[in-house]
C-alpha cells in the first residue's frame, strides 16, 4: 500500500506539470500552436474537434497496447494494487485480479474502437483524420505505475470531452461524443477503484480546455506530433 501511494504521488506530475523548464516551454508553445490551429480563424469545426478527440484516443489506445504487450496477466496478480482487492470469485473467472487483465484488454479494445469510429466519422464529414502514430511514450516500470498513468489518462480524457462537447455543432455528433465520453468515465472510475482511489471524487467532473489538455498530454507524445 505504501509503495502504491508513492507511485500515485510521483506519477501525476507527468500529467499535471511538465518534466523540465525547457521541455515545458516547448510543450506550452506546441500546445498553444495546436490549440490555435484547431481554432483557426476562430472557427472550431466539428472535424477539428474530432481530430482533437482522435489524438487523445490514439494516445490511450497506444498506452494500453504497449502496456498489455509488456505485462502479462500474472504480472497484475503481483501488483501492490491487488492487495485486499479480493482473490476468489467464480463470477469473475479465476480471480478479481486476474480479471483486471481482462478488463484492461477490454478497455484497450474500446479505445481502438473509438479511434476507428472517429477516423470514419472524420472521413464522412469530408475531413482528413490525423495520422495514426505508435510512438507515444509512457514511463512506468511496474503494473502499479502503469495503472497510475492509465488513471491519469482516463481522467484527463473525461475532462477533455466534458470541456469540448459543447463546441460540437452536429447534434448527432454530440450524442456520439457523449456515448464515448461516458465510457471514458467508466474506465476512469474502474482504474481508480482498483487502485484504491474513490471512483467518483466529486459530484461534478471537472472540464478542461483544449490547451490545458494538450499541455497535459505533451509529456506522452514521444515521437508523435500533435
Amino acid at each position: 500500500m505504501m509503495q502504491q501511494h508513492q507511485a500515485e504521488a510521483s506519477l501525476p506530475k507527468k500529467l499535471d506539470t511538465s518534466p523540465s523548464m525547457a521541455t515545458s516551454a516547448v510543450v506550452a508553445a506546441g500546445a498553444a500552436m495546436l490549440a490555435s490551429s484547431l481554432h483557426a480563424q476562430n472557427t472550431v469545426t466539428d472535424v477539428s474537434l474530432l481530430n482533437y478527440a482522435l489524438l487523445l484516443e490514439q494516445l490511450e489506445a497506444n498506452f494500453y497496447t504497449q502496456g498489455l504487450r509488456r505485462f502479462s496477466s500474472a504480472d497484475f496478480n503481483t501488483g501492490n494494487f491487488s492487495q485486499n482487492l479480493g482473490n476468489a470469485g467464480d463470477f469473475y473467472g479465476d480471480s478479481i485480479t486476474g480479471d483486471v487483465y481482462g478488463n484492461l484488454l477490454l478497455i484497450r479494445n474500446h479505445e481502438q474502437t473509438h479511434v476507428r469510429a472517429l477516423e470514419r466519422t472524420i472521413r464522412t464529414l469530408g475531413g482528413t483524420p490525423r495520422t495514426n502514430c505508435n510512438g507515444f511514450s509512457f514511463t512506468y516500470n511496474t503494473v502499479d505505475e502503469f495503472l497510475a498513468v492509465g488513471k491519469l489518462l482516463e481522467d484527463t480524457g473525461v475532462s477533455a470531452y466534458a470541456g469540448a462537447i459543447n463546441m460540437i455543432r452536429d447534434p448527432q455528433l454530440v450524442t456520439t461524443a457523449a456515448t464515448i465520453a461516458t465510457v471514458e468515465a467508466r474506465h476512469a472510475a474502474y482504474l481508480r477503484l482498483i487502485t484504491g482511489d474513490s471512483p467518483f471524487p466529486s459530484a461534478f467532473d471537472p472540464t478542461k480546455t483544449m490547451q490545458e489538455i494538450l499541455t497535459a498530454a505533451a509529456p506522452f507524445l514521444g515521437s508523435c506530433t500533435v
Partner: protein
Amino acid sequence: MKHPNTSSNSRRSFFAKSAALFGAAALADKVLLAQTTPGTGTSTDIDVLNYALALEHLEAAFYVQGVGRYSAADLNSSIYAPVFGSKITSNFVPYLTAIRDHEVAHVATLQQVIRSLGGTPVEACTYNFRINNASEFLSTAMMLENLGVQAYAGAINMIQSADIKRAAATIAMVEARHASYLNFVNGQLPAPAAFDMAKSRSEVLAMASAFITSCPSGGGPTTNPAGPTISGLSTTVNTLDREVQFNFAGSAAPDGSAVSFMFQQVSGPTTSVIGERTSTPRVILTGGRGTYVFELVVMDGRGNRQTGRTTVVYS
C-alpha cells in the same frame, strides 16, 4: 419561460461556481410531462433540465432511503461481497454515501438552475423501489445509474445553451462513474461496451415509471407491470449427489426484456454456489448431508423481481 440564451453571464458565473448542472439520473413521470410541454418542435432547456431533475429526484430518493437502511455488515453479506477483499468491502458505505451526496447535490443544482432560467423545478414523487435486502439495493442502484447514463446521452443534444450542455456533461460523467462502480460490485463489467447507449426520453420514462407510486400533481404512472416468471425452480429437491445443477433458463419477463438472475443460499450447512448470477447455477453441498435452502431472484429490465425458494435435501 425565459429563453436560456438570455442572462448568459450570470449563468456562466453560476456554473463556474457550481461546476455543473443537469444530469443523468434515472427517471421521470407524468408530472414532468405535463409541466414541461415542449414549445414548437424542440424542447426548451428548461424542459430538458426538468427531465434531468425528475431523474435526479428518483436517484436521490433511492439512496437517501437505502444508504441509511443497509449497514456495512448488511452490505458485506450481499451476494457478491464474499469475493471482494477489504479494499472493496470496507468502502461500500463511504462510496454509496458519496453517491447519495452527489445525487442530492445534482438535485439542488438543477433546481437552482431551473429557477435562474425562470422555470419551475418539478417536485419529487413518491417512490417504491421494492428493495428487501442489500443485494437488491446494489442491483437496483446499478440499473438506475446505467439508465441515468443512457438518459443523459440521449438528452444532451437537446440542450441549446452551450453552458448548460457543458454542465450537463460534468454530471453525466459522474453518473457514468457511479454506473461503473455499481457494475463492478454487482459482478458485471464496469464498462461493458465501447459506446454507452443513448435512450430517448420515452424509453427512459417507461423504465423509471416502474418505481413511481404517485406524484404531487397526481399524474404519475400507476401501472407496475407484473414481474418476470420463474421457470425450473422446484419447491423441494432430493439428492443423493453432492452437486446439484439448476436450470432457470425458461424464466421470462412479460415484456420480453432480458432477465437477470441471483441465486444464493438462505440457510443450511456450508455450500459453494457456482454461477449464481447465471440461469444455470450449480451448487456444491460441501457441508455434507443435510437440508439447505436457496433463494432465486429473477429481475427484468424494469427492475421488477420475482423471488422463489427451493429446499435441497441431501441424503
